[in-house]
């Protein structure tokens, strides 16, 4: 097990590159998803206000 | 065609009367270069080695400085709307603007370069290749810069944005320009010096197309 994480001495380089990739990619995905949720909420709010002012 | 030269004349006259012409750009050029020895120490051998590169980097930066006024001033007083609606093709208008920019910044800097080269201990037999390369390469800076200036027209604090947009496109000019200027000073394999001058010319010719076409496309969007 320790040997697997050591990766023949290259462990720190390998694990940090995969870790950075994982963090950056999930960060991008989450940021995009939060933005989508925010815009959905805004549209819902504005449309509700539009129908209210019409009635 | 007369409208074209009238525009060049107008812009050069405006730049010399209001903006101090090439004076300010040359002054900036001088200051940047005299900062260099403070940064790396006054070792003359080292200065000789980096002189062509530093001169080119300073040329790029000085050319950038004046770009934000290229279309912005005309946009603010409404002249740009007239220029876009004028019967003259917009591509030619952008070309005229780039030419006047080059006449008021590029050309003075090229003339001043050998003098500043002396301060960086550039040998005398390196002066002519340097001036030649700058003469061939500096129009590309104005032409590509015109695209950036047109893209950023109407943007508040567009000066910084123009630098961000334009600097990546200046990379080939810098690379070929420096290697053409260094050819007389450093032994380079084969005929790379002569070739890089030709390649620099090719980049300038390419930007003679890219600059006006891209700049005009950006202006049409900006003014609409």
């Amino acid at each position, binding site marked *: 097990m320790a040997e697997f994480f050591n*990766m*023949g*001495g*290259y462990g720190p*380089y*390998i694990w*940090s*590159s*995969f870790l*950075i*990739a994982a963090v*950056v*990619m999930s960060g*991008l*995905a989450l940021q*995009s*998803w939060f*933005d*989508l949720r*925010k*815009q959905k909420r*805004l*549209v819902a709010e*504005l*449309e509700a*206000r*539009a129908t209210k*002012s019409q009635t | 065609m007369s409208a074209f030269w009238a525009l060049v004349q107008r812009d050069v006259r405006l730049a010399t009367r209001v903006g101090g012409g090439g004076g300010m750009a040359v002054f900036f050029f001088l200051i940047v270069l005299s900062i260099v020895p403070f940064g790396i120490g006054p070792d003359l051998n080292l200065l000789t080695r980096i002189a062509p590169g530093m001169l080119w980097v300073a040329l790029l930066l000085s050319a950038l400085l004046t770009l934000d006024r290229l279309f912005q001033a005309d946009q603010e007083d409404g002249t740009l709307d007239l220029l876009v609606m004028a019967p003259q093709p917009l591509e030619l208008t952008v070309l005229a603007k780039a030419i006047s920019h080059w006449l008021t910044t590029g050309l003075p800097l090229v003339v001043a370069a050998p003098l500043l080269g002396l301060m960086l201990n550039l040998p005398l037999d390196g002066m002519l290749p340097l001036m030649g390369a700058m003469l061939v390469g500096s129009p590309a800076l104005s032409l590509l810069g015109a*695209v950036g200036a047109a*893209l*950023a027209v*109407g*943007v*508040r604090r*567009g000066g910084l*944005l123009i630098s*961000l*947009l334009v*600097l*990546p*496109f200046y*990379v*080939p000019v810098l*690379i*070929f320009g420096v*290697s053409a200027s260094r050819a007389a000073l450093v032994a*380079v*394999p084969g005929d*790379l010096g002569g070739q*890089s001058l030709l*390649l620099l010319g090719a*980049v300038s010719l*390419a930007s003679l197309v*890219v600059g006006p076409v*891209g700049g005009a*496309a*950006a202006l049409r*969007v*900006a003014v*609409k």
Partner: protein
Amino acid sequence: MTCRFVALGLHQTDMAWSIHTFANPTRFMRFSAIVLPYVWALAGAGIGIGLYLSFFVAPPDYQQGDSVRIMFVHVPAAWLSQFGYGIMVASSIMALIFRHPLADVAAKSAAPIGAVFTFLALVAGGLWGKPMWGTYWVWDARTTSTLVLLFIYLGYMALWVTIEDPNRAARVAAVLALVGAVNLPIIRFSVDWWNTLHQPASVFRLDGPTIHSSLLWPLFVVAIGFTFFFLGVMMVRMRAEILRRRVRTLQMQQAAG
């Protein structure tokens, strides 16, 4: 007087756009809602299986040992940095010539993802370079032109951020993307030239026929997973962007009426 005129003009183009909106982007919203779960599933499967293959199946390289595993991040990221710019250019052409209302949404959404993968390619390349070359950063031709590509991505994104009106920003950004597409080969050529001038030959090469096929398969699977991840994030961003413009039109309508 001129100010009011300009404001009126902006308003009118916005109205024209919103008529377009109901034709095409609505269909995209429906389509993407159906497709997205599958795209995410393919991305997850590709990345999951690829990770398993790259750590447990792929053998260490006979020269580089286990450090070759960094390739499974580096190469797919580098591929997507090119793919992203390709999408941006294709969308920009569609936006400028056909005025397709979705095209500029696509171009805007692809840029940050492409920039992120360009960044990842540089970081993973550096982490691979340290044990191989003894330094995190080398000014070799490929690293340098990837860095310039990152700058062009960032400039493109900066342009979108600074121009307020989305219609104008879309067309200005499209012009920049196309000027970039014309210039990128020139930049790449000049950087290659610069590299041979300063560093004649004997540069350690990362690519080419030296990659053994037992490493190539896992690489391929990870690359497919990453590509679907790219498409998934891009769709989410496009959905958000379409809604953002809808919010803008609604706000303007309510402010006016």
